[in-house]
């Protein structure tokens, strides 16, 4: 199955960027993937993404503004009301997942990304499922 959504990934870890980019573009044929290596001037850069993202993957600990701060700025902009925002985090323990849900994330992926299972997660995401990859 081809990935049809427009994706944005905000991640400061180079290997994680390489893995997601390879899986989405090379394996799943995604046509629209934008990657930010930091969160500087995030909203300005987000508004410039063309086509606008349907799904945003946010590394929770990205600098200088963390994933929670980025989520709040996205949710405060009506232009991005329908975008799905998933946390990409190494902290997938139950307590953190509850916090992510309370903050308004639409899902979470465990980091390091598991290349054995990631394509299936994306397929499920594109089918409209909610992904909370609690390990």
């Amino acid at each position, binding site marked *: *199955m*081809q*990935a049809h959504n427009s994706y944005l990934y905000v991640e400061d*870890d180079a*290997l*994680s960027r*390489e*893995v997601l980019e*390879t899986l989405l573009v*090379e*394996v*799943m*044929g995604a046509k629209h993937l934008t990657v930010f290596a930091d969160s500087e001037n995030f909203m300005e850069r987000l508004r410039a993404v063309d086509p606008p993202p349907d799904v945003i993957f946010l590394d929770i*600990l990205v600098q200088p503004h963390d994933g929670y701060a980025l989520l709040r700025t996205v949710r405060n902009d009506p232009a991005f009301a329908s975008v799905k925002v998933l946390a990409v985090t*190494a*902290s997938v*323990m139950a307590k953190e997942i509850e916090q992510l849900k309370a903050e308004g994330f639409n899902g979470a992926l465990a*980091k*390091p*990304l*598991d*290349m*054995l299972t990631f394509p299936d997660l994306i397929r499920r995401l594109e089918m409209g499922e909610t992904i909370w990859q609690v*390990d």
Partner: protein
Amino acid sequence: MSQPDEITLLIAALDGEPEQRAQAQARLIELGSAVVEPLAALVCAQQGRRAWTAADVLGELADERAWPVLVNALRAANAMLGVSAAKALLKYPGVDVLPIFVAALPQAHVMAQQTIIHALQHLGDRRAVPLLIDQLHQAESPTIRTALVQTLGKLGDPRAIPALRAALHDENHHVREWSAEALKWLGDPAAG
């Protein structure tokens, strides 16, 4: 169309878009034994997308003739080929892949390393523990070290405790946090 001609066309389609690739792969799997040698040659050549899509098909066929090239491909510089080779080898029924993965891990591309480490976690075989500890001492990528401490914790072997305690002082916070979590799984009081 003759079968060799069809195979040639299907192999060309392995470089295509995902839907085209998926159709070609499905047909190659249907053709079965006749495609093993041409696809193994693609894996040997290690060139581009067709190499790893061929490895995916060989995994579905699980033919013993392809085993050596898939093992060799674990160390490929083509990152996705290493990943697909690992996935393919997992599909061979009744074969002990752990020694193969353990031998290939130090020389694999970092993306294939990540896949192999996750595969070792899914296999749940504690024979991997000494190698994983050794790799934890050597891995430069914090992402790989995180995957290693996660897997050491999941395997539940107390031999990993000293290495995980040392990793509580890793320079990377993800590694430190996951080491603490892994030590909790192992029931170690150092987890705090």
